[in-house]
């Protein structure tokens, strides 16, 4: 095998989706090796995200101009070895495989090596050098090596490995200069005179000889980390701190974000009212106010939660606490076939499934990410709360008690509990299915020393998450809102038609009720009536379910509109008086206890949320998983609602 294959500018060198014929340099390194920090320092805000063809692994690519040279830099997924054991790692192996049919091989590789874990990291360097591509090494965390009384002769290290070596700590500007100059010059990088061996026993001796010639002194145990871990990983104190930290985490996402969301909603509400006042045509005004502004508002409303979540998780990740939290929760999450880090994603889903699903990015394996994503939407999110409050309020009165406790509280608690247990059960089922597609991945997790997160990397993580959400998910949410608005408001009725039908055109509630009763959505509601008939839902409830696809809480206002309630946002009184229009139950109350219980359970399980569908599309990289999620949740929702209706019907 030849090492120098003409610097490997393979024919048809082209990055899928990035059609520039520019030289491409890929960053290779283990997780926690400072690879992404380096990538961000080099590319800044110019990075693009995409997917590798055929797999659901996120691809980060950025364009860098150095003097008058343009380069493409690609941040490959972090891996400890090129002998891949997961789909994510396979991407790295495939990208570096010159013979891979679909993935173009980069022109050169930049390997980041954490100077404090050099003994382990050299193992991968040996594998990377064996690809024969031009390689340069960036040593990171050399400041930490010195602080912990370790040392390395960088010049001797460069001679020993035979490729260019530079040190860059924390993406510092003055150290990036020489690196940028080196990157431009990639075609002139020397290849090692003697390639490192491939036989593992020989690799061990190669590593030893490199470490000896470069006078490597292994760093001392990080005293600070040892002392902090003695508390944070303590069976009692560590667990207490963990739950306290998670409580604060949840509170921040749940309560700190909601006033900001409230302001945004008021802002968009104000804009809507302005439009309704100033646009003469009632139909166009309503389209602009409720369809467009409401839709954009619905997208923007998620940003406070997403931004806060990513501030928190990037601090947790960069500081090293994420690994500790995962370590403490691993045993519990393993019961659901997941690993410790999935806990944070499921917890975030209690606020909203959108940040929850985005938080699965912290899971290294795509299979675990999918299993977690399939369970996360079942956690009781804040959008279910108004629906639950309305339905539970109709089901039992505030004075009803179960023993000493209010019945409403008991039902709410049960809904939260069943949601969480169902999420875990679903994740377990999907992780079992996932296992069939390959062997169980061994679990290992590096416990990096505690490090100070940089404001820059936290900021970039937040920016990246918000921008990605606005671009990819925003479109889906906005178009769903518009489609639903059209369904609920078309066809248009003239004042004359409404008066002929006996509607007082000056009564706003009566007009909305007439519009919705004769809308396309009502036709859909009637059309799907046979499907929901066994659950006791009539076409009016179906309209509410259809409308709630834009966001679950919309169910409340839509039912208010259907019932021509004076205040559509508090429709309980109006709904109490609705009666069944036809069939064997004609004349009876529509919202019987059985129907209410079935509706509650339906909302617990059904994926009534276009935003979640959109974010699943973005995070899993295809429409397959959102389709699977919507399908299985609908089937479970229908079945569980049917059974609940039967039981409650029999009891009442």
């Amino acid at each position, binding site marked *: *095998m030849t090492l120098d*294959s003409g610097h490997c500018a393979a024919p048809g060198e082209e990055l899928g989706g990035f059609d520039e014929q520019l030289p491409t340099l890929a960053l290779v390194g283990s997780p926690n090796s400072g690879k992404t920090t380096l990538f961000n320092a080099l590319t800044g805000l110019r990075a693009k995200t995409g997917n590798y063809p055929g797999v659901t692994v996120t691809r980060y690519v950025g364009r860098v101009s150095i003097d008058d040279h343009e380069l493409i830099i690609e941040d490959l997924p972090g891996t*400890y*070895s*090129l*002998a891949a*054991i997961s789909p994510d790692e396979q991407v790295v*192996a495939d990208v*570096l*495989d*010159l*013979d891979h049919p679909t993935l173009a091989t980069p022109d050169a590789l930049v390997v980041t090596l954490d100077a*404090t*874990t*050099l*003994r*382990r990291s050299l*193992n*991968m360097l040996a*594998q990377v050098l*064996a*690809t*024969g591509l031009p390689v340069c090494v960036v040593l990171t965390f050399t400041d930490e090596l010195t602080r912990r009384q370790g040392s390395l002769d960088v010049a001797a290290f460069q001679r020993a490995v035979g490729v260019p070596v530079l040190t860059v700590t924390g993406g510092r500007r003055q150290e990036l200069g020489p690196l940028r100059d080196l990157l431009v010059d990639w075609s002139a990088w020397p290849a090692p005179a003697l390639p490192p061996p*491939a*036989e*593992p*026993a020989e690799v*061990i001796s190669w590593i030893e000889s490199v470490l000896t010639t470069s006078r490597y002194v*292994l*760093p001392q*145990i990080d005293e600070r980390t040892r002392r902090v*871990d003695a508390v944070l*990983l303590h*069976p*009692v104190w*560590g*667990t207490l701190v963990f739950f306290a930290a998670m409580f604060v985490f949840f509170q921040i996402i749940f309560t700190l974000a909601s006033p900001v969301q409230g302001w945004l909603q008021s802002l968009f509400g104000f804009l809507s009212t302005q439009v309704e006042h100033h646009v003469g045509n009632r139909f166009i005004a309503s389209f602009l106010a409720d369809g467009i502004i409401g839709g954009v508002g619905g997208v923007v409303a998620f940003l406070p939660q997403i931004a806060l979540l990513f501030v928190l998780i990037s601090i947790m990740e960069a500081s090293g606490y994420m*690994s500790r939290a995962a*370590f*403490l929760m*691993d*045993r*519990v999450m*393993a019961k659901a076939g997941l690993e410790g880090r999935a806990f944070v994603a499921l917890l975030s889903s209690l606020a909203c499934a959108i940040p929850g699903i985005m938080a699965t990015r912290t899971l290294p394996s795509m299979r675990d990410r999918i299993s977690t994503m399939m369970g996360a939407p079942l956690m009781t999110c804040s959008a279910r709360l108004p629906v639950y409050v309305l339905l539970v309020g109709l089901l039992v009165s505030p004075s009803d008690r179960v023993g000493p406790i209010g019945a409403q509280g008991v039902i709410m608690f049960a809904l939260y509990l069943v949601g969480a247990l169902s999420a875990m059960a679903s994740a377990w089922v999907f992780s079992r299915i996932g296992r069939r597609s390959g*062997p169980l*991945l*061994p*679990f*290992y*997790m*590096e*416990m*990096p020393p505690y490090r100070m997160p940089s404001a820059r990397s936290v900021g970039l993580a937040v920016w990246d998450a918000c921008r990605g959400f606005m671009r990819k998910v925003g479109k889906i949410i906005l178009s769903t809102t518009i489609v639903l608005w059209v369904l609920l408001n078309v066809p248009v009725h003239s004042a004359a038609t409404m008066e002929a039908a006996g509607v007082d055109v000056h009564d706003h509630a009566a007009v909305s009720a007439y519009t919705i009763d004769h809308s396309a959505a009502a036709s859909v509601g009637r059309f799907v009536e046979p499907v929901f008939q066994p659950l006791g839902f009539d076409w009016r409830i179906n309209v509410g379910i259809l409308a709630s696809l834009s966001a679950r809480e919309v169910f409340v206002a839509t039912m208010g509109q259907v019932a021509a309630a004076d205040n559509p946002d508090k429709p309980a009184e109006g709904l109490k008086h609705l009666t069944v229009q036809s069939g064997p139950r004609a004349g009876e109350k529509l919202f019987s206890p059985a129907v209410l219980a079935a509706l509650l359970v339906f909302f617990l399980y059904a994926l009534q949320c276009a935003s979640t569908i959109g974010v699943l599309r973005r995070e899993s990289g295809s429409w397959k998983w959102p389709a699977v999620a919507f399908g299985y949740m609908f089937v479970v929702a229908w079945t569980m609602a049917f059974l609940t209706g039967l039981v409650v019907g029999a009891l009442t």
Partner: protein
Amino acid sequence: MSILSVATAPRRRALRSAAQVAADVATDGTLADMSAGESARVLGIAAEHDPAGARRMFDLGFVPGAEVRMVRKAPLADPVVFRVAGYEIALRREQARWVTVAAPAS
């Protein structure tokens, strides 16, 4: 002694999974048998059923001759943190059992 077999493919060296060879060595125990604060020396990786997983343990620094120290257990006894090759790593007991070690030097 070959600890792991690696095949060589044309153009690019294929990194093959590991085949454990030290099976005939009388082993004194595995990482899973260690208690907090104990140190031991890695003998080999015994995971014939999962050669790719064994290869990964090797790449993580559990190479024959390496010194391993058991740092601590999680509150529910699993996973376990080990110090090897100058860094700390958590393994579930299931994987810790793969790595055979020489009797802890007490």
